[in-house]
């Protein structure tokens, strides 16, 4: 049984087509992950009472638990007690779990960036009479954004790869489509070779954008 190049070319379009779920999940998780990450990071930055220890616990869980365990726990475990989860389609379930995970990772990136703004900048803002809100809006967020963008981009790349686990809940994404093909033809070498190619292309494009954005932001000032 030799390497069937033509078969590989044949499955590639199917896999690329299935990557629409990869894009969808990445986009949605990045969006909600950013919002959640920002909230968590701000709680941590201001060390808001009660919420801050909860945030730390949350981050610890997200960092420690394997994604696949979180997916199963949510989709099969939580479903036992929640009608809402029971009726949820797998795609949305994955989007929720990956968003929650992404929020944790992005919180770390944002937190680091917020902390990187030095005390002198705050002294200057306060001494000019700025309020905490003005300091945040005019000084900390603009400066932190520049610092955060490269690491947030790394988070996006991780998220993209995380979405490849969505097939375990039955989403027919790139991995899901590969599994369907595999059960039909057993040509695993060609199929998973093609899967890797699909991810190389997606991540490759993201990396080019990342490098461009990083360059722009480092030139900004």
């Amino acid at each position, binding site marked *: 049984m030799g390497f069937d190049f033509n078969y590989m070319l044949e499955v590639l379009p199917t896999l690329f087509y299935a990557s629409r779920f990869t894009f969808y999940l990445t986009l949605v998780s990045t969006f909600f992950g950013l919002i959640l990450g920002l909230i968590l990071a701000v709680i941590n930055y201001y060390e808001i009472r009660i919420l801050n220890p909860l945030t730390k616990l949350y981050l610890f869980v997200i960092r420690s638990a394997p994604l696949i365990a979180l997916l199963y726990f949510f989709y099969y475990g939580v479903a036992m007690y929640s009608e809402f989860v029971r009726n949820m389609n797998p795609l949305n379930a994955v989007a929720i779990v990956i968003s929650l995970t992404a929020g944790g990772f992005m919180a770390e990136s944002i937190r680091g960036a917020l902390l990187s703004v030095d005390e*002198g900048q705050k*002294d*200057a803002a306060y*001494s*000019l009479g700025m309020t905490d809100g003005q300091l945040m809006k005019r*000084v900390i967020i603009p*400066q932190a954004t520049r610092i955060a963008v490269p690491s947030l981009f790394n988070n996006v790349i991780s998220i993209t790869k995380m979405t490849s686990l969505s097939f375990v809940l039955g989403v027919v994404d790139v991995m899901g489509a590969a599994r369907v093909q595999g059960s039909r033809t057993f040509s695993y070498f060609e199929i998973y070779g093609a899967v890797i190619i699909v991810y190389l292309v997606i991540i490759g494009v993201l990396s080019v954008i990342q490098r461009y954005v990083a360059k722009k932001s480092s030139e900004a*000032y």
Partner: protein
Amino acid sequence: MTKNVIEIENLSKNFGDQKVLEDINLTIKDNEIVAIIGPSGTGKSTFLRTLNHLNEPTTGKITVGDVTVDAASYTKKQVQQLRMQSSMVFQNYNLFKNMTALENVMESLVTVRNVNKKEAREIALEQLERVGLLDKKDAYPSRLSGGQQQRVGIARALAVDPKVLLFDEPTSALDPMLVSEVLQTIKKLVETDHTTMLLVTHEISFARDVASRVIFMNEGRIAADGTPDEILSNPTDKNLQQFLNINQY
């Protein structure tokens, strides 16, 4: 009689168990140019920062211009009002890194004082011209030398027309080559402006040159206070004599 622009009563500041400022009482009149000297770690910076409430006093009452903040009870609003009476020039310049020189000078006018952009811009350009940096108006701090950054810092402080200018060792982070351009800028200010100034400095000869009054701080207290002549030429305090001996060259 000129009126007091700064009044400080029983000011103390602790960092944890460490007493950094102990029971400071001081009044400063309009137009005085006060140099504050003293050994390292005696609380000169802390003192200046409490005037701006960048360090929260442990006890005491601080009045700058027509705003009083009493450590025993005060509001956020009062603190903000207090800060708006004075402007601070920092040892490390502390220009906003995400803003150009011009934007730095405009910032508090626009954001804090609600001056419209056009007017703020005119004021800022005027101030940049005063410190000789009009040609650098669009440069970000990272593209400016230390001396230039500090001159922008001075322009930023001047833009709001403060009642008091606070300088915390404005030249001590600078290359020796760049010190004089900043000292010259300050000297010009003293000659043309009539703003009250408090200047923490290690430049004794500069203090003698520009100050109308010199305060010697030691171990969190005001150990000597008088004219430059009294303090620098005829010191009576033992610690002051010692300090001046070390700082003479």
